């Protein structure tokens, strides 16, 4: 589904990704772990197409297309979802308005009929309910006044509504208490655990992986993948630290 080959990227002229290679097949969940500054979030932003994250080498193929050739909104329409580490507040734009515009933009790009207001609200309420988010929060401006945990939960509600093929989730577990972690973990499994979907979980800690069992765990250090293993690698990292394992 996603094939990253020898990816190099820089931010403000500073090289961050230095030859990253990774293949994710449909039906798989991959976890990327690594120390601060290794390039984890940069990888997410490069895949999402954020301005300022410049690709200087390598290729990324997503569902048979050259992902790097697409503007961010076309990447979304092609089925990519980027869960933000710090979801952005948008005063004056309600969650409902934002998400309906998002979903219908994607549907139009795929030549599908846009959802009516009523159809959309039904879908949004169901997804909010599944993540135990108060439906009233859908009416509020996007992420404004939300706690850290509520923002992350809102990311998952968005993912449920947009129903992507491939999700890159950047530290979706940070800022969550134990109960919220379980709810978010269950949400990821419910929305994304399917034979035709895949997930790339970017995380610092093993704890989310208790809920969302990865098929592969990679260690990202200094802009490259330095080790790959199964779920046991996450436990090894937790026990011994990155310095020991990534070296």
């Amino acid at each position: 589904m996603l094939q990253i080959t020898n990816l190099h990227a820089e931010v403000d002229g500073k090289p961050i990704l230095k030859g990253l290679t990774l293949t994710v097949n449909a039906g798989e969940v991959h976890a990327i772990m690594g120390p601060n500054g290794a390039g984890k979030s940069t990888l997410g932003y490069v895949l999402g197409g954020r301005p300022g994250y410049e690709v200087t080498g390598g290729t990324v193929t997503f569902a048979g297309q050259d992902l790097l050739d697409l503007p961010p909104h076309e990447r979304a329409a092609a089925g990519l979802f980027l869960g933000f580490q710090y979801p952005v507040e948008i005063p004056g734009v309600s969650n409902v308005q934002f998400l309906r515009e998002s979903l219908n933009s994607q549907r139009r790009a795929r030549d599908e009929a846009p959802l009516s207001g009523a159809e959309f609200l039904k879908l949004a309420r169901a997804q909010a309910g599944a993540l135990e988010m108060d439906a009233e929060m859908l009416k509020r401006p996007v992420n404004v006044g939300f706690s850290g945990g509520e923002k992350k939960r809102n990311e998952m509600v968005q993912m449920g509504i947009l129903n992507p093929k491939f999700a890159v989730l950047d530290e979706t577990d940070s800022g969550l208490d134990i109960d919220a972690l379980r709810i978010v973990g269950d949400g990821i499994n419910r929305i994304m655990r399917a034979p035709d979907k895949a997930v790339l979980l970017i995380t610092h800690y093993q704890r989310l992986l208790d809920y969302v069992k990865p098929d592969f765990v990679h260690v990202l250090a200094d802009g490259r993948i330095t080790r790959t293993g199964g779920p046991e690698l996450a436990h090894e990292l937790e026990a011994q630290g990155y310095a020991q394992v990534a070296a």
Partner: protein
Amino acid sequence: MSLKLRAMRRWLPKRMDTLTLPSARDEAWRWSDMATLEAAREIKRVAGHVGSTARIGDGPRLVFIDGYYDPDFSEPGDLTLERVEFTSTHPLGQFAAGQGYELRFPPASFTAPIEIEHVVVGEESHLPLRFVLDDDAVVSVVETYSGGGWSNRLSEFSLGKGARLMRAVRLLQDEGFVSIRDEASIGEAASYVATFLGAGGMGSRIDGFLRLDGVGAFAEMGGALLTRGEQKQEAAVAVHHAAIEGTSRQVWRAVAADASTASLAARAEVARHAQKTDGEQSLRGLLLKRTATINLKPELEIFADDVKCAHGATVGELDAKALFYMQSRGIPEPQAKALLTHAFVADALDRIGEESVRDAFKADADAWLEAAL
């Protein structure tokens, strides 16, 4: 109110022989675009009625063509227009002085929203209007400027005890210049709220002086100026607290694209005896291009010692993080920019109480955004 409308003949459009216009050297006029005003006078007249904007409700409608009341296009209902004389010393208001119209609203009367249309078909037009609200009268007015040329208006408002006036004014002329001079005297516990939208292709100066004369009066003047191309629009308004326990709000938003200029100057004056004043100013500008200019000037002049006056002024660009966030969810860049800009402008237009009027103004702002982005 009995129907009493004199049949009026059409007057020849008024034309000033010589104009002495304010100079940019005068601080109060430093951002004014008097060159566009002068050029607007030379816009050729087009024959006949240039069409009018869609109706918002089914209340009375007053149509002024070239500054003269046109009974053929108007539906005044119970309203009575009296012809009265005006004087003014205001640099632009003085040109509109002379014969004009007065609308009186009796005590405790309630009038369905009045739609006033100012249609200009070229050259220049001048009109003085006076609104007199007796005690407890409630009036809502929607004003629309359309066509092209120089529209110069002098409006006076007198609000008796407990009266309420809600005004929404949209400047939608295709070209030319609109200059508005508003003067209001607001009585005890009366409320005056005016919201402006500059979303046409003309230059403009919205100039206002609101005086809170009665105890506990409320005054609000604000809105949104949207400029593009080389357009210049400006609001220069002042509220004067002359009595105790008055409240004033000045919420203005400016959005400037291309090489345009939007300027906002808002002043709050509090007289020595006007204790317990509650004043608030919020001036915010959004630059859609770095070649555009936004000037903001919040001013407070406070002589009383027991007052609460807050003010804020900021200019910025669209939030790049929010733009990427929206794009990452599938929203193309132009739509993402439009949503963010719409939200920015909505702050000011949300002050319009009447839902149908608010929706009409937001639709005008959206049409502007679609063309500008």
